[in-house]
């Protein structure tokens, strides 16, 4: 079955430290993966998609098919990065499956 796993429910780092939010997936086909973010009192929004291979707000994510991972990374955390982050797998045709989410807190 297709599944997305985010092993950390909570992650706390200091401002300026590197950040890595883990995401692992299981999918039999060719995966299309996303990171969504929900800032306090805002709606969920797309942060990154693996196809575009872009960097948004300093975040990058590389698809590793061998390890079935799509970890989100940022070299220097900022306080405004505090938010809820969801990894998501597009199952093709119809559905997006989300992980359990990781609440990231950046301490000053």
């Amino acid at each position: 079955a297709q599944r997305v796993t985010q092993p950390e429910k909570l992650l706390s780092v200091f401002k300026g430290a590197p950040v890595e939010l883990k995401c692992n997936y299981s999918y039999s086909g060719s995966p299309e993966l996303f990171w969504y973010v929900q800032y306090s009192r805002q709606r969920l929004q797309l942060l990154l998609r693996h196809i575009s291979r872009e960097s948004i707000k300093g975040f990058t994510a590389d698809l590793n098919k061998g390890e079935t991972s799509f970890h989100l990374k940022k070299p220097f955390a900022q306080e405004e990065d505090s938010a809820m982050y969801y990894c998501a797998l597009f199952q093709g045709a119809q559905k997006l499956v989300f992980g359990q989410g990781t609440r990231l807190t950046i301490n000053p």
Partner: protein
Amino acid sequence: NAGVTQTPKFRVLKTGQSMTLLCAQDMNHEYMYWYRQDPGMGLRLIHYSVGEGTTAKGEVPDGYNVSRLKKQNFLLGLESAAPSQTSVYFCASRPSGTGELFFGEGSRLTVL
């Protein structure tokens, strides 16, 4: 530029009452979705629609019904609310050919 709009944003129900959540999108998207968000559970898909007049079950459909009579609207109904349905509900839509979802602001439902 409204995007995806959900109403109501907050509601308190007693066990056994019924209610309907309305989702409206003005982007002419084919696909629409209802998710619930619970602590530690992430976003779980309740029902979805691939076009006007069609609906399908998601991961947690029990206790909910949906309708998509018009392309721009996707209604989520609770016929007999239960405390287990206390949650934040998110509607989302997307166009064909992409996995990018556009979300509403969420509706917080409390069932006493």
